[in-house]
């Protein structure tokens, strides 16, 4: 029997996705195609930064302060070694942007993963079990939402910076950032998941699972969760973009990544001092990369929302 049924699987998983409704709509939507292409290029550059970048911006041995503030090569007075010029410390801007994008993306993705784990578990519990637990968890979410993410992050990061001292803080900055962005935004997930769970819970397949005697954990994870994935996908893209912006803002304010390991935000911030002294590129180029990155993620999210058309419950 098994051999018969394995033969039944039509074509590969990839061709199934390619021919699915999503695949069709993707191919018919040039904005989505271009966005995905740009995103993949940026992600590729970020992932393989150590292989692509001509310099290692973290290695003080490769930095020469004498090289500082070279303009990009298309401007007069440039050093052909440095494609996008150099920053105030003499680091190659191209390499630094690659490494910075890598950091920004990593912080964004990890923070969203943390949000998702927290938010999905809380949303599932609140939606499925309901009653007092639901009220309690949702009031917590309301309280969390009534603080602005940035405000919470600034307070938290400023306090930790003061407590541990700059040195230790800089060493663990990436973890602090992930934690604070992750914790601050879980209610977005929790609310969306709870809303879909409430809708799914009424469907007969959940009753059928209960009549079969399955436990609540199994029903939540194996039955309801897979059917709540579409809205989770959609908010995930938006949340990744938001997390990258939050990280950049915090770094810009000096509460994020230290100048020795610059993310896109800290690069923009460090170049900001020189923007009026003529070295605009230190701020402008990472700024463009940040805007493009966030924009394509948001465009992909828009497209996905149109295709999956889940009921998004916001606010």
């Amino acid at each position, binding site marked *: 029997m098994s051999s018969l049924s394995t033969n039944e*699987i039509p074509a590969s998983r990839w061709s199934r996705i390619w021919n699915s409704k999503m695949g069709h709509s993707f191919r018919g939507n040039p904005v989505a195609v271009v966005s995905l292409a740009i995103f993949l290029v940026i992600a590729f550059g970020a992932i393989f930064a150590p292989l692509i970048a001509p310099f290692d911006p973290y290695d003080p041995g490769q930095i020469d302060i004498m090289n500082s503030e070279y303009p990009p090569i298309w401007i007069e007075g440039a050093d052909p070694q440095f494609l996008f010029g150099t920053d105030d410390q003499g680091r190659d801007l191209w390499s630094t942007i690659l490494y910075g994008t890598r950091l920004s993306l990593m912080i964004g993705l990890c923070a969203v993963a943390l949000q998702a784990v927290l938010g999905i578990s809380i949303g599932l519990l609140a939606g499925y079990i309901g009653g007092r637990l639901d009220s309690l968890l949702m009031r917590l979410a309301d309280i969390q939402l009534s603080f602005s993410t940035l405000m919470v992050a600034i307070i938290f990061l400023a306090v930790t910076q003061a407590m541990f001292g700059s040195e230790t803080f800089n060493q663990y900055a990436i973890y602090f950032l992930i934690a604070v962005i992750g914790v601050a935004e879980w209610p977005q997930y929790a609310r969306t998941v709870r809303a879909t769970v409430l809708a799914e819970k009424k469907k007969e*397949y959940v009753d*059928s699972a209960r009549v079969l005697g399955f436990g609540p954990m199994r029903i939540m994870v194996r039955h309801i969760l897979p059917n709540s994935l579409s809205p989770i996908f959609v908010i995930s893209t938006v949340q990744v973009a938001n997390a990258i912006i939050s990280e950049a803002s915090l770094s810009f304010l000096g509460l994020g990544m230290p100048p020795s390991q610059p993310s896109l935000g800290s690069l923009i911030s460090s170049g900001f001092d020189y923007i009026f002294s003529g070295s605009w590129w230190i701020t402008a180029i990472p700024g463009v990369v940040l805007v493009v990155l966030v924009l394509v993620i948001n465009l992909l999210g828009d497209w996905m929302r149109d295709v999956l058309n889940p009921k998004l419950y916001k606010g």
Partner: protein
Amino acid sequence: MTDIIAPDSRPLLELKQLEKRFVLDKGFLETLKLRRGRIVRERRAVHAVNDVSLSVARGEALCVVGESGCGKSTVARLVAGLLTPSGGEILYDGARTDNRSRAGMMPLRKKMQMIFQNPYASLNPRMTIRQALEEPMHYHNPAMSRAEVRDKVAEVMRTVGVDPSWSMRYPHEFSGGQRQRIAIARALTVDPEFIIADEPISALDVSIQAQVLNLMLEAKEQRGLTYLFITHDLSVVEHFGTRVAVLYLGTLCELADTRTLFENPKHPYTRALLSAVPQLSDDHPKHIRLKGEIPTPINLPQGCPFYSRCTYANDRCRVERPLPVQKPDGSAVACHAVEEDRLDG
């Protein structure tokens, strides 16, 4: 209500004065209402099932019929343990089931299964047919090997007429009739003895209804199943049921053998219901016209629930709720007019 005697001495399922209310005003503030300029505390509730007592004997198919809002689906869900009753008792094989925990219900889950109305919603859309069928078997028989489970699933699929080689497909790739077959197969994987079927064919086309009904009859004969069959379709009842319970506004009107009920309906509501079914025959019999429409089951009147629409109603019906009374032909009827012999014919 012990006078409603099932053919078998010990019924498989027994409902004793079963009641279910759904409270509408949950929070404290919702219970406050303005009545004639004064604030009163009032808690509205939907009386979905009121004082229903009946029993199902081993091997029979008890049909519960009624119109929308009569509480027939609520009865099914109460029996299946999906809802907890507000009052009364449910006994399965002589033991109470309504007050058990989930763990306490576990042994029953293998004996009692449910088939739902909408085959488009009762299968998890993200699970292949094989996953859907193997899951309950793994869960209830952890000792079974993968190969055994697979063979058993293939066997069950064949008995319901679904090609086992389709088991890697997802529910959306099947038609409504095939999905309902798969849903039946899923219920049969745990080898139940009792099946609650909540409108299992009303979402299907005529020619497919016959297929699914035949399948359920076959399963009954081969496995000795007992059914609690919920439906609004009286022609299906006549064909499938051994006994029939007619519900109106959550209250039992008439309980009788199928033959007796169709040949000699007694309760005025049963008569109206039977006369309203469109027939294929040439003559155009006038159906019994009922006054008005079904009232809402919120805050029921104290008298007979059918009072507002009944042509035989009198003052006694308005104030006193009739109780089911045993008739010589074995049926039980809850109607003052029948009791007093006020009905003609």
